[in-house]
């Protein structure tokens, strides 16, 4: 049974007609065409589906779309402002922290939320913060460097 959901995504208020039992991940990808957020394990163990809800990292594969109405949802598509990349996006490119790119949206959003909480983290703290985001390509070194280089400049 479809219902009207009022979602605020990347600063825009949207009204969509969707099945009530869909996860936020499914709604973002299938109903809103925002395919930056990835379906990895679908069980909350890989972090590829990470989005920000009111600025905090959230696993969209384990979130009901209907339960986050009225909250501020940020996907990777919402990070750049007026075509200008967020410092984290620029840093990931510069440091070579992106190979296949599948983990990247979740990784960047997690890092963004983390740096807002802890602007000058140690390397160990960065590792712990991104430990829920798995990467099969890079071996994490460049990702950690990219995050630390953004934190250094804040």
């Amino acid at each position: 049974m479809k219902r009207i959901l009022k979602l605020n995504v990347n600063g825009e208020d949207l009204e969509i007609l969707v099945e009530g039992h869909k996860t936020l991940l499914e709604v973002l990808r299938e109903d809103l065409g925002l395919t930056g957020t990835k379906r990895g394990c679908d069980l909350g163990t890989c972090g590829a589906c990470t989005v920000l809800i009111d600025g905090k990292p959230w696993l969209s594969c384990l979130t009901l779309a209907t339960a986050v109405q009225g909250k501020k949802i940020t996907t990777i598509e919402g990070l750049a402002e007026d075509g200008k990349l967020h410092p984290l996006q620029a840093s990931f490119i510069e440091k070579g922290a992106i190979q296949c790119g599948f983990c990247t949206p979740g990784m960047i959003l997690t890092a963004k939320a983390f740096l807002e909480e802890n602007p000058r983290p140690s390397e160990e703290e960065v590792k712990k913060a991104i430990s829920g985001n798995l990467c099969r390509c890079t071996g994490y070194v460049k990702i950690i460097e990219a995050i630390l280089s953004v934190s250094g400049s804040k």
Partner: protein
Amino acid sequence: MRLPKFEYVEPKSLREAVKILSAHPSETFLLAGGTDLLVNMKYGVVKPTTLINLKSIPKLNYILEEKETLRIGALTSLHDLYTSPLIQKKFLILSQAAREVGAYAHQVMGTIGGNLCQGNRCRFYNQSPFWRSVRPPCLKAGGEICHVIKKPKECHSTYCGDIAPALIALGAKVKVIGPQGERIFPLKRLYTHNGKKPLSLRKGEILKEVLLPQSSGKSIYLKWRWRGSIEFPIISLALYVEKEDNRIGLSRVVFSGVGEGPLEISEIEKRLLGNTLEDSIIDSVSEQVTKLISPMRTSIYSPAYKRKMAGILLREGLDKLK
């Protein structure tokens, strides 16, 4: 994996939630963070017809210090627990345990109540329909036989939560609200040690608050898992000791991952009473504890390995609390 269809309700109060839950208690499930429930719904091992979103109820998310007691609302997130300066200062083991759950996003989404009430786990149960189709459904999933022991009647699924052992070590109580009103009881009694029905909550009851006594002792939470994040414990230990003149006046030793509920080892607590934490005592109890637990093979880690690790964790914990 798609979620099956269900009715979704957002009550405005706990009383309303209790009413809805009591109407169809076996098919109505409570939703908080969803990091445990939604996975099991995708696996098809639980099939709620209705989900009640507890996060829609205001004022269930709080940490309040009263003279003798710390009161924590059941919908307080694990992230709010470990970032609370009060909890870091006075209830360190709880802060440690909350940081060990899953990873960053799980700690933001997950709640203290939800973590305490998490389902028991087993390698035959927490699997996709495809994986489980090779065997008849296990006892916990609605079948006849527990595949761990290959016998009927008893489910041996394991309790793997991180918060419960830490809170039991601190002497926590819980407040629960149901159709008959509220009741308060020690957290330890929330757990039945029955794999199929792990919680002692009666029909229509909802966990509302955790109550912690102010405590003076030292405590530590040690979680042993293969990787440094995400996973449930292979085995974990919550330790609390109060000393008088360097001798132990009170201790609590609580394991997770080795039984059908959080496991308090009173024989070790008795052995420690009145003693100092000298090496001979630590050697003795670390040896003794390996014989006092009976883990089942509900994960890929063998019971023998868990027994050995119980002794190692106890030694490490006691060394750190010297």
